[in-house]
């Protein structure tokens, strides 16, 4: 059987070369419940697009960089340069580095891969609906309708590939021709076709010929498309599970995906080398010998799919906006339009049983200036609250000189939407609601300075005084970064300093003889400190020399010595003439005032 590959212009030719589409069913089928029967509807015609080396693209590296992405110590993705450098998929990290010494090794970041894939999916969704994301760097699309519109499967395939490549190129340049496309009956055949395609020439398997296309391929095809992290299981059952590349699956894996690897190996040993040979086996025998997963593989070998496509629901767009014509010159006119918008948005959200906890307000002026600011609210934003925030924000922009011309467009974009499951306030004290007068005043200040302009502090664990308080913008949840409970050795007891300088102020500490005091690596001061001088620099105006009347230290503090963020410091408390007290630090051959006991 030929492997059907069509180039740019040869798609029609191949269609002619193959006999007209016939019901692609095994000829020897006697009707039995396990046997794929002719009564079964033919699988959906699907287009699958795969992006080669997606993990490298998502990491933002150009193809010319030698990059390998590892997961669980095995190489799962390679850049073309690394591949030409002799690195292969599935190698251990050390082995890969040995083959290619200048190799950059990255840890796999599935989250970043998925995020980076999103614009490409959106670009394809513009062309055709019903896109299913198979995984980062892979998507599927029902091809029947769109291919008629784009002038055949080949036309659709080229259009989709161009759209994806354009979306990729806008983020990471240099990756032209990274997209491979296959069109076939059924998701498995389409994915296999895409896996065999090369850049610029999609493989189009004519209708009803999926089985013929698959027949000459080795049975190992059943284990998935190597290098794309798509296992057959994902295609067969559509269970969204974290794929483990079949190459790396351990021998004694009890998962269904491990079953398929074992099945493929066993079939080869049994002398069934191609999918065509496997498909020729009678289905009842396959079921009896290999069980349910074997039967599923048998159906795939027939070009029958385990499941239809599961199109993703495009995320709903809750944005409401209004064009103001003539432009609103007066603040209250714009605010009034904002009020109507707020009511519209609120009605839209409550109609779906949703509440908005973060909202962006966008404004466009006559001069083409675009302004945007996010607002957060601990509870739910009601219509009135949204309208108030729009007004405060407009006032803030007007006073701060942001809005200098008439407002032509006003938009409200909900950024965080949750199901409205109510909010239970504590009966006593603790999380009682913020009084509305306070909330109003703080929201007004946030309108003037931005949400980060108003902060509230949470105590947390830490050795430094600057680490012990975490500042969060007003309205965000008050969560400490580090727990307070475990002991923090090196934390200073006693009074906390009233002023904590961020960044520390440059200073100079000298002994009686005027020599700079240093601290040895064993944590011993070279001489008792006698003078403290605040050196001008940064935000500090400096000051006259201060005689040190009492001191304590040095207290060495070595943090994170295991990585490059490590710091070694020696701290002193000093009391100077006139009643000043300071926390001074010796670090990197310099002196700093970290805090003032004011």
């Amino acid at each position, binding site marked *: 059987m030929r492997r059907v590959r069509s180039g740019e212009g040869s798609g029609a030719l191949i269609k002619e070369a193959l006999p007209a589409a016939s019901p692609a069913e095994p000829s020897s089928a006697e009707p039995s419940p396990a046997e794929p029967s002719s009564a079964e509807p033919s699988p959906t015609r699907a287009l699958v697009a795969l992006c080669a080396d997606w993990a490298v693209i998502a990491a933002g590296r150009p193809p010319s960089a030698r990059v390998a992405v590892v997961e669980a110590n095995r190489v799962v993705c390679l850049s073309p340069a690394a591949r030409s450098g002799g690195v292969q998929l599935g190698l251990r990290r050390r082995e890969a580095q040995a083959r290619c010494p200048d190799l950059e090794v990255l840890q796999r970041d599935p989250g970043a891969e998925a995020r980076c894939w999103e614009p490409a999916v959106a670009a394809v969704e513009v062309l055709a609906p019903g896109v299913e994301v198979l995984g980062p760097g892979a998507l599927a699309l029902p091809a029947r309708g769109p291919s008629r519109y784009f002038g055949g499967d080949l036309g659709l395939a080229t259009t989709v590939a161009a759209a994806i490549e354009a979306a990729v190129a806008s983020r990471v340049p240099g990756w032209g021709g990274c997209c491979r496309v296959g069109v076939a009956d059924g998701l498995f055949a389409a994915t296999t076709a895409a896996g065999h395609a090369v850049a610029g020439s999609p493989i189009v398997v004519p209708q009803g010929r999926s089985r013929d296309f698959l027949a000459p391929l080795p049975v190992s095809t059943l284990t998935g498309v190597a290098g794309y992290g798509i296992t057959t299981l994902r295609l067969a059952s559509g269970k969204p599970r974290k794929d483990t590349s079949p190459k790396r699956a351990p021998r004694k894996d009890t998962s269904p995906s491990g079953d398929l690897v074992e099945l493929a190996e066993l079939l080869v040993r049994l002398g069934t080398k191609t999918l065509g040979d496997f498909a020729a086996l009678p289905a009842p025998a396959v079921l009896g010998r290999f069980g349910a997963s074997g039967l599923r593989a048998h159906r795939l070998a027939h070009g029958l799919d385990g499941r239809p496509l599961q199109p993703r629901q495009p995320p709903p767009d809750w944005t409401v906006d209004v064009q103001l014509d003539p432009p609103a010159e007066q603040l209250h006119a714009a605010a009034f339009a904002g009020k109507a918008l707020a009511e519209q948005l609120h009605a839209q959200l409550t109609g779906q049983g949703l509440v908005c906890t973060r909202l962006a307000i966008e404004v466009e002026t006559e001069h083409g200036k675009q302004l945007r600011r996010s607002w957060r609210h601990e509870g739910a934003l009601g219509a009135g609250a949204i309208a108030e925030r729009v007004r405060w924000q407009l006032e803030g922009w007007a*006073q*701060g000189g942001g809005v200098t011309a008439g407002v032509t467009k006003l938009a409200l974009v909900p950024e965080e939407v949750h199901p409205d499951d109510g909010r239970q306030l504590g009966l006593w004290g603790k999380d009682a609601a913020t*009084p509305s*007068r*306070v*909330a*109003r*005043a*703080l929201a*007004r*200040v946030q309108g*003037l*300075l931005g949400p980060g*302009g*108003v*902060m*509230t*502090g*949470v*105590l947390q664990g830490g050795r430094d*005084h600057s680490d*012990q*308080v975490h*500042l969060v913008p*007003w309205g965000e949840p*008050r969560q400490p970064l580090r727990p307070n409970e475990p002991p923090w050795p090196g934390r*200073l*007891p*006693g*009074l*906390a*300093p*009233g*002023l*904590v*300088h*961020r960044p520390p102020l440059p200073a100079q500490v000298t002994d009686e003889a005027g020599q700079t005091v240093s601290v040895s690596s064993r944590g011993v*001061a070279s001489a*008792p400190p006698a003078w403290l001088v605040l050196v001008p620099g940064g*935000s500090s105006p400096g000051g006259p020399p201060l005689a040190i*009347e*009492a*001191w*304590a*230290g040095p207290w060495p503090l070595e943090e994170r010595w295991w990585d490059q963020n490590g710091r070694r410091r020696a701290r002193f*408390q*000093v*009391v100077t*003439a*006139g*009643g*000043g*007290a300071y926390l001074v630090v010796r670090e990197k051959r310099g002196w700093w005032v970290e*805090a*003032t*006991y*004011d």
Partner: protein
Amino acid sequence: MANSLPALVERGLSTALVQARTFPLVPALAPLFPGGALRQGSTVSIGPGVAPGVTTLALSLLSGPCARGSWCAAVGFPDLGLAAAAQMGVDLERLVVVPSPGPKWAVVTAALLEGLDVVVLGPSSGARQASASHPGESGRPAGAHPGESAHPSDARRLEARARERGAVLVVVGRGWPGADVRLAVLAARWRGLQDGHGYLWGREVDVMVGGRGAASGERRATLWLSAEGSSAQVQLAVTSRGRPLEVGSAAGAVG
């Protein structure tokens, strides 16, 4: 005329009521203030004194109202140590920080006085920042220097806003001619440090209080702060009150 009389009486009554309402203070500070509490609508200035200690004094002022459920804000205090605030008994959930209001400090402070109970105006808000780049630049009128008073019209507007909303404005580290109560630190002595060992656990601050009206007449007091071991709370006490201060003895007492 008969109509206006009840209105007048009512207005007078409401003014009297506003004046009668106060925020509680921690017991150690109570004797320093007229009536033993922080009167709503008043302005307190903690001036740049001879010795450091204004930040601690401001925080100790906040701790009383904050413990009773009042909301406080600190404007233009980028370096404020919130750990110290928590140690002094300020509830951080009800303390809001506006670290760098920039040239809009007056507008920001006015907005905060509208809704919050006690607003602390730090030394580096507005005036200081404007003059740090270049004196007389960035929108602030000339005459605004670090430690000096803000523009008189700004100051008067903020005082009026505090009076009208029943809030308290606390100005730290700069002169404020219209303040009702004026505090200054005369001397500070530290306990706990020896030559090379120990740690700072106690401090004595000599405070002078003056002001206008009920607060006129100078009073002096010595406040005693201590946090021994790892205790999270600072004890605040008055060691002696009303006795004349001997500044000469201050240096001798340094640990």
